[in-house]
């Protein structure tokens, strides 16, 4: 019940893309390729990739924020050295993507893509700006709550997770079929970050904390 179903008609794009048959449950196989996953090296990821406000001629517009947390496995153990990739709209709610037609301004000082490897304690940390909400054409007057897309590898291909992190108290939650597609309200809340004054840096940036728990690896010791 943690994950959304494939078919969720309120999110119109699922109607022709959701498989109609349930997935086949795999029998236990310790040799399965999916029980392992790619390993990423420190030299592949530039530390500057974790600062989405850097790398341009000037400072991006918007509220500067720090987003940090830990990647944990199903037993609560930290997952070190795993790749975390993020992408997001700018502070006006516009993506630096050619197919985003929302008539909000692009920011020449913000692309909105970053990545990092988790540290020994499974911790990631990004500096970015708070993304804006934006309209989409799913239904009349449809708006997505502000969110940051996250892509996380874990240690096995079975743990691979792509999801979205939201911000506390967003008034759009109740109207967003993507957020509402998660059947369990408690599970939905696990996608909402927490404002944290201890992460907040005085005179500089607001801090948000968000931990991620990856799915159980088959045959993993409890």
């Amino acid at each position, binding site marked *: 019940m943690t*994950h959304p179903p494939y078919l969720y008609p309120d999110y119109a794009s699922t109607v022709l893309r959701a498989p109609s048959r349930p997935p086949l449950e795999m029998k236990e196989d310790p040799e399965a390729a999916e029980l392992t996953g790619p390993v990423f090296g420190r030299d592949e990821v530039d530390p500057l990739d974790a600062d989405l406000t850097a790398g341009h001629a000037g400072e991006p517009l918007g509220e500067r924020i720090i987003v940090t947390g830990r990647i944990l496995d199903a037993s609560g153990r930290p997952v070190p050295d795993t790749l975390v990739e993020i*992408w997001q709209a700018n502070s006006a709610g516009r*993506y630096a993507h050619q197919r985003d037609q929302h008539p909000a301004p692009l920011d020449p000082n913000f692309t909105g893509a970053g990545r990092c490897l988790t540290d020994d304690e499974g911790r990631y940390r990004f500096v970015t700006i708070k993304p804006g909400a934006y309209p989409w054409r799913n239904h009349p007057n449809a708006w997505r709550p502000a969110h940051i897309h996250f892509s996380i590898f874990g240690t096995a291909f079975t743990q691979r997770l792509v999801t979205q992190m939201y911000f506390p108290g967003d008034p759009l939650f109740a109207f967003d079929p*993507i957020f509402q597609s998660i059947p369990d309200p408690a*599970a939905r809340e696990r996608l909402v970050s927490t404002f944290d004054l201890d992460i907040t840096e005085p005179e500089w940036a607001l801090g948000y904390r968000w931990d991620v728990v990856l799915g159980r690896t088959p045959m993993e010791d409890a």
Partner: protein
Amino acid sequence: MTTPSQTVGPFFGFALPYAGDWELVPEGHPGAVTITGRVLDGAGEPVPDALLELWTGEPGDRAALGRGGAGVSGGSGVSGFGRCGTAPDGSYRFRLAPPSRPYAALLVFARGLLKPVRTRVYLADAPDPLLDSLDPARRATLLARPEGHDVYRFDVRLQGEEETVFLEF
């Protein structure tokens, strides 16, 4: 308390693809094969905004992201992981060294998929616990079709009569 999945959405194209992401081995690598095909929706229409990830189960000797497609010095440039966004016609491709297992693992992310679909690309039709558990029509959806000696065709049908067999672990 697992973190729920959400769709990759339509706008990952400036963030997740990287140079040479579909090339698990360099061009001309001895014995390399190409897996190519299309991702199709329930109406048989191409899915132009999907992201596929292939994993052979063998890490190889090249950094997976291989920044700029460059190999790690001293290695033969083989990666076990690749990524490919679909083209406007729904097509994708991967160049890889034939895996030691009869299959490669495949994940498909897309707008409209609230969680990815997971399947396997089998490069040969041989006895296998998964394949042997399926009736012939379903089995066929997991078999890549050889086209010439080093190209295999594998379409992913998300929904419908010939829907690909998707897996859950």
